[in-house]
């Protein structure tokens, strides 16, 4: 299975400016979050990238994309009608090939030397020849923030799961009933990583659901249907995701990048200095 294209969604309410934020990457280069995401995709061998945005944001995104601007295809979501509809806007761009999809408000950090997160996902999808979502074991207290899957581990694998059920931001009550995974500690669930390889069936399903529903349709709903129609896997990624859209999310993402890169010692020293300059805080803790 070949995955020639990728889609970044960045048209969500309150999310449009997030990819434009500036960060310093692990190589100590300052760039926008969008550039960091694009590099993640590039490293996975993807040839073409579409970005779903709101029409007025095009200039800002072009600027934020820097040297990658010319390689991007901007797709417009005219009205903020939900995540599923944003993805569906890219249907004609995607065509009949599987597509890598990343959300615009996350940055990723791999813990596998020489292999970025998107690359891990694409390799699994390519060899498995089906839709695959990147997932991460997540404590139940974080369920209000993520979509989560239920399923069984594939035999003879350590990080692949056959997805049976997908629920967007489930309550722990529902998660316990529907999403437990054999072998997992109680209270741990496989939650989305913000990265998927989607097959054309997903777009078909999205179209059907949006047609039937008057409310915005989340991607998770379509993926739940996908699990009943074709083989659909989840892959536990060796890495971490950082949501820059939540409070202190950008700071946390920056720290994660810096502490994993060549500026690690410098950042650590600065943190120690900061802590030393606030004796009352240090004592209180």
């Amino acid at each position, binding site marked *: 299975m070949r995955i020639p294209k990728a889609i970044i969604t960045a048209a969500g309410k309150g999310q449009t400016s997030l990819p434009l934020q500036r960060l310093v990457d692990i190589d100590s280069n300052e760039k926008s979050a969008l550039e960091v995401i694009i590099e993640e995709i590039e490293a996975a061998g993807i040839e073409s990238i579409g970005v779903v945005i709101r029409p007025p944001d095009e200039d800002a995104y072009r600027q934020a994309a820097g040297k990658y601007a010319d390689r991007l295809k901007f797709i417009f979501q005219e009205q903020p009608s939900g995540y599923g509809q944003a993805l569906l806007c890219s249907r004609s761009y995607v065509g009949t090939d599987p597509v890598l999809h990343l959300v615009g408000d996350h940055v990723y950090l791999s813990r596998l030397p020489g292999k970025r997160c998107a690359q891990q996902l694409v390799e699994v999808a390519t060899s498995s020849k089906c839709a695959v979502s990147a997932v991460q074991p997540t404590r*139940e*207290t*974080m*369920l*209000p923030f993520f979509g989560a899957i239920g399923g069984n581990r594939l035999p003879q694998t350590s990080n692949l799961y056959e997805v049976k059920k997908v629920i967007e*931001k489930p*309550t*722990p*009550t*529902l*998660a*316990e*009933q529907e999403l*437990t995974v054999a072998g997992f500690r*109680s*209270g741990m669930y496989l939650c989305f990583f913000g990265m998927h390889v989607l097959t054309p069936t997903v777009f078909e399903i999205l179209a059907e659901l949006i047609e039937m529903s008057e409310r915005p349709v989340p991607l998770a709903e379509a993926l739940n249907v996908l699990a009943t129609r074709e083989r659909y896997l989840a892959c536990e990624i060796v890495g971490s995701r950082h949501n820059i859209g939540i409070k202190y999310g950008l700071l946390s993402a920056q720290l994660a990048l810096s502490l994993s890169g060549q500026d690690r010692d410098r950042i650590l020293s600065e943190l120690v200095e900061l802590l030393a300059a606030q004796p009352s805080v240090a004592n209180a803790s």
Partner: protein
Amino acid sequence: MPLSQANGSLMALQQPMKTNPSWIETITSADLQTRDRSVDRLAAGRSLTELLQAAEQLDAFWRKEPNLYHRVRALFFLASIFRYHVPRQVDLKVDGRTSARAVGHLLGRRFVEAIDVFRAELLSTGPNLAVSSGLARAYYQLGIQTLADQVRKSVRTVRGNQWMFRVGHPGEHPLRIHPMLLGSSEEPSDFPLLVEKTSVRMDFSHSAWSDIFFLGMDYPEGARVINASIDLAVRGRDPVPRPPIEAYLRIIDRPLLRLVSVDLGAEAEIDEIDEVFDFARDYLGLLKAALIASGVVPPAMEGCHQKTRTLLRSLIGQRGRGLELVSQVNDIPKGSRLAVSTNLLGCLISILMRATGQISKIEGGLEEQDRRLVAARAILGEWLGGSGGGWQDSGGIWPGIKLIQGCPAMEGDPEHQVSRGRLLPQHQLLDDQAIAPETRQRLQESLILVHGGMAQNVGPILEMVTEKYLVRSDIEWAARQEAVGILDKILAALRAGDLKQVGALTTLNFQRPLHSIIPAVTNQFTDTLIELAQQKFQSRFWGFWMLGGMSGGGMGFIFDPKSKLEAQAWLAETMIATKRRLQDRLPFAMDPVVYDFSINDRGSWATLLRGDDARMPDGYYGLIAPKWIKQDFRNLSEQAQRELIRLSQNCRESPGSVQWLLDRILPSSSLGQQEPSDLTALLRDNGFDSEQHEQIRSDLKLGRIGLAQNRLPAQTTIDDVLPDDVIDVRGESDQALRQLGAAVIADGALAVVTLAAGAGSRWTGGAGVVKGLHPFWKLLGKHRSFIDIHLAKTKKTSTEFRVPIPHVITTGYLTHGPIEKFLSERGDGDELGPVYLSRGMSVGLRTIPTARDLRFYWEETHQQVLDEQQQKVRESARNALMQWAIQQGEASDYLHNTPLQCLHPVGHWYEVPNMLRNGLLRRLLSEYPKLRYLLLHNVDTLGASIDPLLLGHHIREKACLTFEVIPRRIDDRGGGLARVDGHPRLVEGLALPREEDEFRLRYYNSLTTWIDLELLLSVFGLSHNELDDQTKVDSAVRRVAQRMPTYLTIKDVKKRWGHGQEDIFPVTQFEKLWGDMTILPDVRCRYLVVDVFRGQQLKDPAQLDGWFRDGSSKYVENLCEFTRP
């Protein structure tokens, strides 16, 4: 004495055991016939040695057996062996002592340790009643505890419940409030109101309490219930039936939890999470349990010491926001047997789960998986609140009529390989195909639901049913099978639309299987109503319908639909009249009511109201609006201002509809008119000594008297009596002494005195009814009271000796009128023989306890620790009661109840002197000049009878008082016969310097006393002639009274309010006790050791089942000759 037998048993225990597999096989066998053998059958014909060997095998079995139900069954087998079978065979003359260490373990719920101590004693001393009763109790309680632990574990492991036991910090709360409750951006503080309305459940049959969790989990095939969800209206008050339970929820603009119970008139604003776990602090325990069980405040947060605002911020996602939860039960009285509490809990849990997205739909009905989840959470909530019913109780959440059945546990279920059945049953809705709409309609037209007004605790019944099921007593097992068969027939009759047949079957169910398993399901009130209905309506009365666990409260009567209106009116009238007649004998909490009902086909239903429609129920504003009105409008929150404006608008638009608000905020002429004259008159008429009362109050306040001061000095030595201190008459047949006694009886020299002045507060839980008149058991086919039985025993002796035997019943302020009325209504005076009432001449006024005494009572005396959650609830209640006592004023008069409940009897010591003071003894001596002896006994000592042999002993010993004592069993607490500083005497438990002293005493005081009147009069310093001189008599009584110790005690007293609600308060009273006559050196006392059957006392209705099964009731029946067969 057959010592060899005891030694033989002992040796048998120490030798290798013979193999006798039948007991264990009965527990483990897959073959139903083998498995269902009863303990009674297994024990029949076994020698003591064989029984003890079987007990050894069973004890070894339960300790290593992994299967829960096998373990529990072995424990109940053991309890049964030691409660019923070993006592029949032990050598009655081997008296044992109860180990203080073992009792300490029992009270602390360390049951295994208690068993180990008792077993060690069994090995060292051989079998006796004390150790046997101890083992029976320990095995029984361990069995019940093991079952309760399993249900708790199962509830916790239900998928969807587990996370709540892990999330311990409010900042990590994984639930979010439903966005539809957040309000609009235009009106940020005008939050929508979510309303949920729920029915109650009415059961057609519960197949002999088969919905008890333990039963359903062990015997899913027999766990079957048919129930219907119904709406109710109180006849004459409500226009049409409606769901009786309502819950309201909304976001508020203050960062706290506000809980309001409209019907209980209680509200609280909760700022600390820990307060949510303080269940008994106020009347909001059920709302708090719902908050916890719904996961809004997960159980794991108990003790987190965090503010609710932290939790609310995570939950609602906004600062400064809180939640308000309001409950309302539409004035349906407590004890309706319609599971109002469980369905209210279910309704509250459902609304909270909707609000937090745990139920798929915020509005409308519930899906099946939602209902099951709510039911599971309701079980959790009941456990948290320290209560619990059966699994059918949350039936009001479901729609219509349903068949609910236990399910076998399959692989993947948490119960798999733990129990045979699942915790939760399957609900099968019986649709219009199964039961035609016309049949449903006709059911509504023929069944009349009522609340008889009786308040009774169904808890002990459920424990008895569980025990009987597990030991498979033959009668119980046959009855259970019959009940299961009747359910099938009811189902068939419903399918066929034959409601007359349904009525016949529900009656049969009540009168046959249910009554066979638990005779206490019925009572004189219920039986009278059934009898009267049959007489009045004959073939138009189709049957009786028991609801829930027992009758007397909520019940049903089925009539020909053409007679329904007539029957409704007749029932309303007849129930009130019957209640009036019986209310001194049976505990009624309220006047009976008749309901209208309709079947609810929607189940629990929620609606989201917005804007002006988002209005709380009227009662809510009655509670809350006065508080708003008292504040400056500008200081109110935006939301409260808006509510107040809407309320004011409503008042203007329809002034007639706001009468309730005016009643609440303005004084009315009927308020504040509590007339104290009733109490004053009662005090005056019953010999209240105000001087003594003030002295006691002053002493109490200064700490001169109190519970701690009841005790004898610490240096007092307490020892068991020596063999020569007692005369053991068990099994004795001294003909000479018997003839001596018989001659005296035949000569007319004996009278009987039954002490019945006390309130019997333990028997009725402080309900203030007359224990002596309580028709507690059916003997020879009729409900008999304690007094019925005592009179029948005297009658039999009188017939046997052909002599009239005067029978005196001593009475008090509470009991005199009712007993007098009861005797006159019996109408068999001539046949009965001479009966006299000796009216009490003294009364005390209860006072509020001091915090010091409450602390001593609760913390310094040994008390049974309850199951974990119940103990938490008890401790919370005790804190609240301590605050109540301090606020009310320690040692101040207790006046906050009906006048009769504010008085107290001053102890049974006064009852014999009262016969001197009220002139009855003088009268008896003049009417029966030969009268020389009295047999005095307590009203609850049913085995006490005129025994010529014992009287012979008394005469031969030339004693003034001869007391009967019995070998102590584990339940016999409260003192006994002891050598106190070397002198034998009776000593009260509350006077013992150390509580553990009691366990060294082999004999318990039955209080039954043979009295030589001449010698007694000499103790009082009175001659026959001086009995006419009231002044001398009074002075003599006062003189002896001053030599008697006075004890301070704490008793529970019930206060009734609202619709069948009852609160229990501790109050202080004082008393002087008859047994203390033994401390007077000038009173010659002797002590006879008699059989347990003769001397045991019935203090608690929970003893009745054992009393029946161990042969005690038969023993008593044989002593009686009833004039009303």
